[in-house]
């Protein structure tokens, strides 16, 4: 309805999942003795901390400065990727998160900062494990 200038805006901008992740970001924070990747772009800042043991990501934490979708995406990533192969980080793509969190298209640039951070974390981890 132009009546409302609200087409697509009338509904809650945040899905229940985004709200839950934002409200209790259990992986928010730093990890000592861990690999760390930090990216700043698009007005968004993300730091990721990973502990990798035998090729497996055993611990993940994030810090983020950004909109709720950025924070929720970072939290969702950490929750999902703990326990997965460190090598997967290099191929990480946010497209699945974009969809499952219903991130509006105009925010995709910001969410891609997470992708950059994860991939950068992936290389750092690989570099570290080569030592």
């Amino acid at each position, binding site marked *: *309805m*132009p*009546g*409302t*200038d*609200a*087409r697509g*805006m*009338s*509904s*809650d*901008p945040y899905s229940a999942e985004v709200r839950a992740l934002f409200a209790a970001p259990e992986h928010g924070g730093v990890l000592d003795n861990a690999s760390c990747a930090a990216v700043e772009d698009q007005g968004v800042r993300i730091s990721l901390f990973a502990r990798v043991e035998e090729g497996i990501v055993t611990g993940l934490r994030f810090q983020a400065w950004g909109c709720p979708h950025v924070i929720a995406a970072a939290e969702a990533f950490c929750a999902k990727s703990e326990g997965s192969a460190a090598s997967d980080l290099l191929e990480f793509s946010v497209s699945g998160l974009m969809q499952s969190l219903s991130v509006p298209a105009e925010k995709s640039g910001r969410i891609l900062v997470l992708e950059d951070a994860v991939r950068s974390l992936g290389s750092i981890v690989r570099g570290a494990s080569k030592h």
Partner: protein
Amino acid sequence: MTDRSQMIYLDYAASTPVDPWVVEAMTALMTADGNYSNPSSTHAAGRRSVEYIAHAAGQLASLLNTTEDTLVWTSGATESDNLAILGAAYYRRERGQHLITMRTEHKAVTDPFSELEKRGFEVTWLDSDANGLLDIETLRAAMREDTQLVSIMHVNNETGIIQDIQSIGALCGENDALFHVDAAQSCGKLPIDLAALPVDLMSVTAHKTYGPKGIGALYIADRKGVHVEPLLFGGGQQRKLRPGTLPAQQIVGFGAAADIAQSRINDDLGHLTALRDRMWAGIRDVPGVTVNGDIANSFPGILNVSVEDIEGESLLLALEPLCVATGSACNSKSQEPSYVLRALGRSDALAQSAIRFSFGRPTTAADVDVAIELYRNGIDKLRCLAPTRAA
């Protein structure tokens, strides 16, 4: 003074009471609980307000068989008419500056056209036949290469006459002229199927169909080339076509009224037809009485009659406590005979004696019987009082 307890309101074409269910829906948007929030706000309360508005848009869209995003909320049919006429004229002014309308349109249409004439546009003012109907050949003859907008009302507010908007729209389409319809008197009262009708712009209002005063909408067909320039600026509401905080309670009232109208439009028409026929049967044998319009081709909520050699103002007073109109409500304060009836070729004297009876949902057969009696008696009395011409 009129005793209000016995006042009989037969002026539903001027305005209607608001359906109690509509009032309830409106009240829920005004008090407590966050529903009063500004629909432009992003927080939960604002979103709720937006949801109510979207629901109402759905109700009005359903009544007219269109989609929500073709509707722009306005403050009433007067504003809708202005937005359609001024807005389309300016939007298409490069294409041509010739416009067509009828003399028998409402002031909310004729006045914007007169204003456009002052600003350099050219307007052709069509005449109707003696019943108020537009002959399609008259329109065809007026069409020009540079005709960019035609505005013809659906139901006339004084006579109830129904124009053939299907044929008129088709002709406009052939000539690439936009077609605007003032449907203030028909929305919610006659079936309107915008998915099927060749109408580009349509003005509607709530208060003629048991909704609140001060809320209307303009339908803008979702077709290439159909657009208007805004008249008001500010904020980004309604795709910048019509800014201002959306009056949620008014919109919800219009939506509820549309919903009710949709569910009972046929019953309403049956009810009104019976009342109108009863009224006409009761007065048609009064010497010198004539219908203004054409009963066979009219919205049955309106019966407009003139009578020979009767002074209109005295007739109106003799009819109290009936509340009826002479001419249209919007002009009836001037003592001028109705320009609409004059355009149908009525003499000043006949036009001046015109009484518009208009019926509504609450009207009963008993109300009509009182009206018949008062009308007959009033005419008798005034005729007795009048000097015999030969005297």
